[in-house]
């Protein structure tokens, strides 16, 4: 029973780390504020766009993941890694890449324009959803692909030899188990959208709750309003999480020999089309970022290097800490608690931490640890979504066997669970590291000059008219994030089938 006690403590700690700062802001602001008509309108738009963004991401991810799961081709593994990149891009960089493809003078208009097709206008609610799908399709694909790869290949062989319908027998139960969780986590990410919604939304029609929080905090210094809106975000995120996790039922697949799936079914052409379309959608904007950033690499100031080192340190520390917290937290309650972390505005979280820490230490002395803490909170929901199916599967399949062999505690983890979790652990670690690298986050509330992280330096360059150098910094940031992601992700896949 020690395990469940540890799980409960971990869930409480994580929930507390979110609730205490929000409560501190609420307390300092003097209680709950009523929401205005404009706030309600923002809330409606926020929920609406988050729902569609998550739904479209997940629906598109299913055929792409299936195609990737059942086809073997040269460069597949590299493609899977690099297709994950949009998820870890800093927002502003991603917008630049998207506009290079879909913007007024973007690639699509350049190609379609001469053909007489009216100019594509990306700005509007559809632009917001397009950008959110761009960000989150990679995550959805990876989560669902994991589900597919989690079906033991022996099952496919047996089912195929019996002439059974693979989809209803094997794939549908897996999707029923995986898809609601993927939907929930993407829905909650999109609830917090701010810069994407504003820039691509085209104007005040696309106002989100996060913008209302930003305004309340920066211009009105209305802490009670900011905290009240954060509570609304928390409730929304919590409810979405509970519904989705409640829906996510389905049988485990049972144990296999952990071999790579070999499949003979499905249309090669369709699979190739799906993979090709997804790759083009996700990789063209990345290529644009590469092209925009290359000239700027020469203009990078020398201060970029210490900032880079700081960012890498934060990222590595975030990986260690997140994984350490995630393992005991991998329960339904734990995952629900972790969703609180990304549902709440980073601004309110940062302000709350500032209020909590201020009587004890100088906030700017702990800028990096606080950035780290917030990064951990932000990564946990993804990490748990990635790890939980694997951990529960391993427990169900091998837990009793392990116990009957007298394995307990660390030995049970080391010998039985961890080898089985290698793939999701690598993916989770890579994602955490990359997200932490790219996060501007709360450091802007606390920083001292010359102690910034790489994203902060990038924003400073932009603010000083140095757009070219800023794009260079963005490229460096993307390359490092992707490198970190690739290293961990690859590390998780070393034990390939032989």
């Amino acid at each position, binding site marked *: 029973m020690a395990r469940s006690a540890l799980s409960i403590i971990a869930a409480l700690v994580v929930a507390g780390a979110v609730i205490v700062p929000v409560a501190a802001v609420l307390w*300092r602001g003097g209680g709950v504020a009523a929401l205005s008509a*404009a706030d309600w309108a923002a809330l409606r738009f926020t929920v609406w766009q988050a729902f569609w963004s998550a739904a479209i991401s997940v629906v598109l991810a299913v055929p792409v993941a299936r195609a990737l799961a059942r086809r073997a081709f040269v460069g597949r593994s590299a493609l899977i890694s690099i297709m994950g990149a949009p998820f870890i891009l800093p927002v*502003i960089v991603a*917008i*630049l890449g998207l*506009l*290079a493809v879909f*913007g*007024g*003078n973007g690639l699509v208009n350049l190609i379609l324009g001469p053909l007489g097709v009216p100019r594509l206008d990306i*700005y509007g609610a559809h632009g917001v959803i397009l950008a959110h799908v761009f960000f989150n399709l990679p995550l959805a694909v990876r989560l669902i692909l994991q589900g597919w790869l989690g079906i033991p290949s022996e099952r496919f062989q047996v089912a195929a030899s019996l002439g059974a319908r693979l989809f209803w027998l094997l794939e549908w139960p897996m999707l029923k188990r995986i898809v609601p969780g993927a939907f929930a986590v993407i829905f909650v990410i999109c609830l917090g959208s*701010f*810069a994407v919604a*504003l*820039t*691509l*939304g*085209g*104007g*005040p*029609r696309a106002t989100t709750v996060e*913008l209302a929080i*930003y*305004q309340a*905090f*920066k*211009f009105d*210094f209305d802490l009670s309003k900011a905290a009240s809106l954060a509570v609304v975000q928390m409730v929304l995120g919590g409810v979405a999480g509970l519904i989705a996790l409640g829906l996510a039922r389905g049988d485990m697949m049972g144990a296999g020999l952990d071999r790579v799936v070999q499949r003979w079914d499905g249309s090669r052409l369709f699979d190739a089309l799906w993979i090709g379309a997804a790759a083009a959608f996700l990789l063209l904007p990345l290529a644009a970022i590469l092209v*925009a950033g290359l000239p700027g690499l020469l203009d990078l*100031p020398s*201060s970029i290097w210490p900032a880079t080192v700081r960012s890498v340190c934060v990222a590595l520390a975030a990986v260690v800490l997140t994984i350490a917290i995630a393992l005991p937290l991998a329960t339904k309650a734990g995952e629900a608690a972790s969703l609180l972390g990304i549902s709440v505005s980073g601004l309110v979280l940062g*302000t709350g931490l*500032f*209020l909590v820490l*201020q009587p004890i230490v*100088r906030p*700017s002395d702990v800028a990096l640890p606080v950035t780290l803490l917030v990064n951990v909170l932000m990564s946990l929901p993804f990490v748990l979504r990635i790890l939980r199916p694997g951990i529960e599967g391993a427990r169900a399949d091998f837990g009793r066997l392990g116990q009957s062999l007298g394995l307990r505690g660390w030995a049970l983890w080391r010998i039985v669970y961890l080898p089985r979790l290698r793939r999701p652990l690598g993916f989770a670690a890579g994602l955490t590291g990359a997200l932490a690298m790219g996060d501007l986050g709360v450091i*802007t*509330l*606390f*920083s*001292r*000059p*010359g102690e*910034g992280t790489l994203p*902060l330096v990038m*924003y*400073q*360059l*932009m*603010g*000083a*008219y*140095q*757009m070219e150098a*800023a794009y260079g910094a963005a490229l460096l940031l993307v390359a490092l994030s992707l490198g970190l992601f690739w290293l961990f992700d690859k590390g998780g896949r070393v034990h390939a089938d032989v």
Partner: protein
Amino acid sequence: MQKTLLTVAGLFCASVAAAETPVLTVYAPDYFGSEWGPGPSIEEAFEARCDCDLQYQTGDLLPRLLLEGANTEADVAIGFNSDVSKRARDSGLFAPHGLDLSPLTLPLEWNDDTFLPFNYGHTAFIYDNTKLDGFDSFEALLDAPDDVRVVIQDPRSSISGLALVLWVNAVYGDEAEAAWARLAPKIVTVTQGWSESYGLFTDGEADVVLSYTTSPAYHIIAEEDLTKSAAIFEEGHYFMVETAAKLAGTDNGDLADQFLAFILTEDFQTMIPTTNWSFPAALSEDKWPEGFQELPMPETVLFYTEDEAAALREPAIEAWRAALSQ
């Protein structure tokens, strides 16, 4: 372990330094303290004359000061904008500067006894003069064909966006919403802050961007690029001034006074144009760097006092929101 050692070493050094030289803590916005802002050269010049250690703390100036209240470590805060300084003044955290304001060279009279201006600019629409002829009035911009692509900043999240809605209000008054409705079809998008808008403009995603009259100076001086111009409107341009103030609770009163006095000196003022890309607040035009002297200046300057700005902010934003939500 290494990190602990470093921290201990850092704390040790800091305490030794503190014992020897007094520290002046200056809160500033992030762009001000960054290595591309005016902060570093100002720090160097001031330390040369004060025998002290000037330390910046950067971030959101006013929210942070309000969060810290009387416990703040700040001695001086620099980087307030007059459109939102009422909130700062009402907090009671700041003390009068006690300086003679006759050296100021602002285009309008300034006699604030607490908030000391250090630079200014005007909102303006910037365009590429090789692609557009420009606009000589706000009316001309509103009358421009709808395929002219304009980007602006959100008045709810950006100080320049707020200045724009006040500008429209100053020019059009009760007709502001109708004016916004005429501009709306040309507005490609509204961004969170100035950087995002300006990036869209330099990337060619927009033809016209809301920025400052001083923006062309950056391109002229730093890039030798003469293709960016500010459209000067005959109706006038909204004036934006940045100020500094002394904290009432400072325990370094003398140093803080010295720093505020330093702001009005030629040493400080000559650093402003090419680091903060704005007009110095107390420097005659003949001492401005080349590139700044040639900038076209608006004939009429429009400005709301902080009380007026505070009262107008909500209706002006609402006119913008209503027209752009159609």
